[in-house]
């Protein structure tokens, strides 16, 4: 076994553009399988622990963007290494104290099976908590994006929405999106891979910096 294989086996990190690890887990909405989300985009995210301050602000923020995610055919699923009873108590507490109802299920991953499969525990940071991970899974169950944040830093919901928009735009139009892209901005046309296509590119009515960097409006 190579060093990289040993590391992968130990940490169990998933890989982009491969099927997301299948799971069946107890959640606040009953037992859910990854396959239950087939046909929808899914954002699976982990938080370190219930009844903690940064996580509480994140859950309120995820609840706030949930309607926007639904417009994009995207579901949310939280996870931490807490019991379902702890989750229920915390979600009820959030609603009682802040008026924010959490509209998405949360996995109670006490046996860490899902956390391990997705590489959510970063032993260098905490051996008992999941880090702030975000996995974007497409309607076919393929892992399309991952974001990892440390325990100290709450996630940026704008970026998560932007990421979903960018992935869906790329899929629908066979394009890529440039840095800081927002819906409505020009998109990047894939670079040509032959000299003939490179020459034709110049006359294609695109906005080109050079043959390899061309943009267009959708």
């Amino acid at each position: 076994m190579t060093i990289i294989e040993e590391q992968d086996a130990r940490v169990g990190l998933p890989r982009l553009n491969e099927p997301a690890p299948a799971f069946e887990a107890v959640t606040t909405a009953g037992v859910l399988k990854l396959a239950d989300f087939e046909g929808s985009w899914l954002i699976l995210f982990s938080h370190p622990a219930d009844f903690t301050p940064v996580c509480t602000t994140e859950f309120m923020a995820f609840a706030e963007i949930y309607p926007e995610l639904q417009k994009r055919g995207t579901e949310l699923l939280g996870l931490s290494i807490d019991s379902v009873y702890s989750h229920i108590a915390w979600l009820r507490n959030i609603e009682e104290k802040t008026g924010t109802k959490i509209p998405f299920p949360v996995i109670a991953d006490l046996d860490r099976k899902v956390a391990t499969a997705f590489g959510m525990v970063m032993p260098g940071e905490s051996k008992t908590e999941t880090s702030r991970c975000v996995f974007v899974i497409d309607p076919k169950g393929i892992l399309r994006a991952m974001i990892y944040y440390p325990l100290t830093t709450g996630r940026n919901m704008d970026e998560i929405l932007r990421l979903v928009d960018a992935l869906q735009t790329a899929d629908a139009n066979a394009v890529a999106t440039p840095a800081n892209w927002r819906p409505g901005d020009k998109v990047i046309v894939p670079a040509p891979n032959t000299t003939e296509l490179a020459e034709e590119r110049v006359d294609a009515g695109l906005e080109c910096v050079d043959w390899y960097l061309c943009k267009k409006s959708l």
Partner: protein
Amino acid sequence: MACVAPDGSLSTSGRLLLEAVRPDSGAEDVAAITGMPLYRVRSSLRELTEAGFVSEQDGRYSQTELGVAKAKSGR
């Protein structure tokens, strides 16, 4: 269980879901009737099947005799 309590009674969503199961329904049909997210419908149909209220064949669902009686009882 999310929609079937340990005593066999149904939650509000479980009752709605059971009532929405017509003969030979797909999960998408039930989701359209109830307005519930498809993942919730799939999960709940699995529970209702395990509890004997619904039967499943090739991804199509129907109420069982027990399910019909349960839906009528309103519990």
